[in-house]
């Protein structure tokens, strides 16, 4: 079945108990997101751009400028790991400010980074100087092409473009401390900043997406995670502008622009400060940034969370005794620094608490570049083995054997992306026009 609409219908029916055929990855994700029980607990494709580049041994100065290479590498690496869906993004926080002239740091083996020492916005007058975003500038055309190719090559409800949401873009343009001072001390300036991002930057970007046929775009907003912002500040600033952009895009462009992803994500770093009430306040606001009602976890120190709290929240938000779906996100550093046995044990614990009645989706909150591939393969295998429905009453009796997989290069031979990736490794600076 290669028709995404049919796959989604299959997922919905399967999750309601109509078991026929083998659900595809997309069907699993849709079934899991609808709160139902699939054949296994699904594994959502994580943000993986710099890890995928590292696995595929590609030069950063080409990878982050070439939409086709970026998309093909994501799809190949995602398939090698066996994720149930793909997420294709690049350094999502940089594209707009880079196109507006922010000073950037480029490197041979890492993603582009904004030079925080030279902020784009120092004062209110800079907003007039900067003017609206020209979508032909910088790597904006590459972002648009990435979204278009992603939709073409891996169609589905979460395929599309990416952008940097309002608050994170303000932080990227002027630095987080100055952005905080604006919202706490100078609401007039803060409003001007949010209006500028919405009307002068994001709307022109979304119009360019729409012209290219990209009908979905997700806006990342990690700078709005807790404790960078409190849930109250997210309610006051982030959500109204996310709503405004969504409504404008829907009305004017017939496009779905979902801003505010990861806003209010509970990212308390110190386990001794974990606080159930604050976590619930964050989750309650975080839910509002999703198109579907899910109990979200993303980048937090989830390896130390008490997952019964997350379940309790999902039950509280549900109806008729049924919890809302949960995205259970493995922390990126945990994935990088743990042993395979620790990863298996963590997933067994989570599936036991969260997954027995369906509606659980496993995820990784951004895979660090240097994560051992064995760890990712182990996580996917453990999720699909321990999370095989009906889930064993005693998960300690289920043995997760080490994953068997071929090295990436050996596996890649014969795959549709092989030529693009192998050829890209021969690239040397100067052969392709990049601004770096």
């Amino acid at each position, binding site marked *: 079945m290669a028709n995404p609409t049919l796959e989604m219908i299959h997922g919905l029916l399967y999750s309601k108990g109509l078991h026929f055929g083998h659900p595809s990855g997309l069907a699993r994700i849709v079934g899991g997101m609808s709160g139902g029980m699939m054949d296994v607990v699904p594994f959502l494709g994580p943000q993986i751009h710099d890890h995928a580049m590292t696995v595929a041994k590609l030069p950063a100065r080409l990878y982050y400028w070439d939409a086709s290479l970026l998309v093909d590498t994501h799809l190949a690496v995602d398939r090698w790991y066996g994720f149930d869906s793909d997420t294709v993004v690049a350094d999502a926080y940089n594209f707009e400010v880079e196109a507006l002239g922010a000073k950037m740091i480029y490197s041979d083996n890492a993603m582009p980074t904004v030079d925080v020492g030279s902020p784009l916005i120092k004062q209110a007058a800079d907003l007039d100087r900067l003017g609206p975003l020209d979508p032909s500038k910088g790597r904006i055309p590459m972002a648009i092409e990435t979204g278009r190719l992603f939709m073409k090559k891996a169609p589905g409800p979460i395929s599309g473009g990416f952008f940097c949401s309002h608050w994170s873009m303000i932080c990227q343009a002027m*630095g987080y401390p100055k952005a905080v001072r604006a919202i706490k001390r100078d609401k007039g300036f803060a409003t001007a900043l949010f209006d500028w991002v919405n009307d002068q930057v994001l709307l022109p970007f979304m119009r360019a997406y729409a012209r290219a046929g990209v009908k979905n775009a997700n806006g990342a907003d990690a700078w709005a995670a807790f404790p960078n912002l409190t849930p109250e500040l997210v309610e006051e600033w982030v959500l109204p502008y996310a709503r405004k952009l969504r409504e404008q895009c829907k009305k004017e462009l017939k496009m779905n622009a979902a801003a505010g992803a990861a806003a209010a994500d509970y990212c308390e770093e110190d386990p001794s400060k974990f606080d159930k009430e604050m976590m619930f306040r964050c989750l309650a606001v975080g839910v509002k940034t999703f198109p579907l009602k899910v109990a979200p976890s993303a980048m937090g120190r989830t390896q130390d969370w008490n997952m019964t709290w997350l379940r309790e929240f999902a039950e509280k938000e549900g109806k008729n005794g049924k919890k809302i779906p949960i995205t259970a996100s493995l922390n990126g*550093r945990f994935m990088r620094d743990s042993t395979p046995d620790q990863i298996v044990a963590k997933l067994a614990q989570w599936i036991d608490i969260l997954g027995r009645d369906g509606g659980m989706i496993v995820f990784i909150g951004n895979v660090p570049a240097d994560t051992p591939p064995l760890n990712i393969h182990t996580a996917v295998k453990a999720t699909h083995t321990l999370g095989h429905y009906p889930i064993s009453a005693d998960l300690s009796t289920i043995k997760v054997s080490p994953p068997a997989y071929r090295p990436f290069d050996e596996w890649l031979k014969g795959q549709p992306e092989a030529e693009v990736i192998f050829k890209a490794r021969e690239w040397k600076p100067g052969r392709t026009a990049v601004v770096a």
Partner: protein
Amino acid sequence: MTDQLADLQKAIVEGDDTQAARLVEAALAHGLPALDILNKGVVAGINKAGELWAANKYFLPDVILAADAFKAAMLPLEPRIKASRGAQPTHKFVIGVVQGDMHDLGKSLVIAMLTSAGFEVVDLGIDVPHDRFVQAVQQHQPAIVGLGAYMSTTMLEMKDVIGELKKQGLRERVKIMVGGVPTSQEFADEVGADAWGKDALQTMQKALALVGGSHG
């Protein structure tokens, strides 16, 4: 006088930088000793903000404003503290929070402690790239460089900063201290630091030990 210092403390806790600076000027004009203003007003205020942060009553935006007020209060105070020490030799301490990290409060506390102990502190701020630490060592020739981080992701930057100092041939000229919530003595040893500051007070004590005892 007590009211003045209590008001100063409150201004810092509430992140009112204008009021904090004004109250320091007023206290100095009233003849209060600079070290009393520092310890009973400024340090007490930033300590209180730290307690609220630890108790989940304050969050990063509140902490940033409290740190702003702290810095505003220190501006008129520092020259007076220096002057009160006369011609006694001082050691320089370059301090910064490593790249990617915006947490200012711990650093502000450490600066207050070091200043009261007589160090001349060069504050590089937050989110400091590797090369700025290198430049600061070349420019200021400090006795000690202090690297801070609040997050387990960003603390890994410390190793890179120390590596960069080694690469530039500067490591042997300077002592290095690391500190911040996720750090530990083991981590300090692992990255090759000379000392780990568990908290602001211990950082000051260890800094004094590194430069050969009390001074100032």
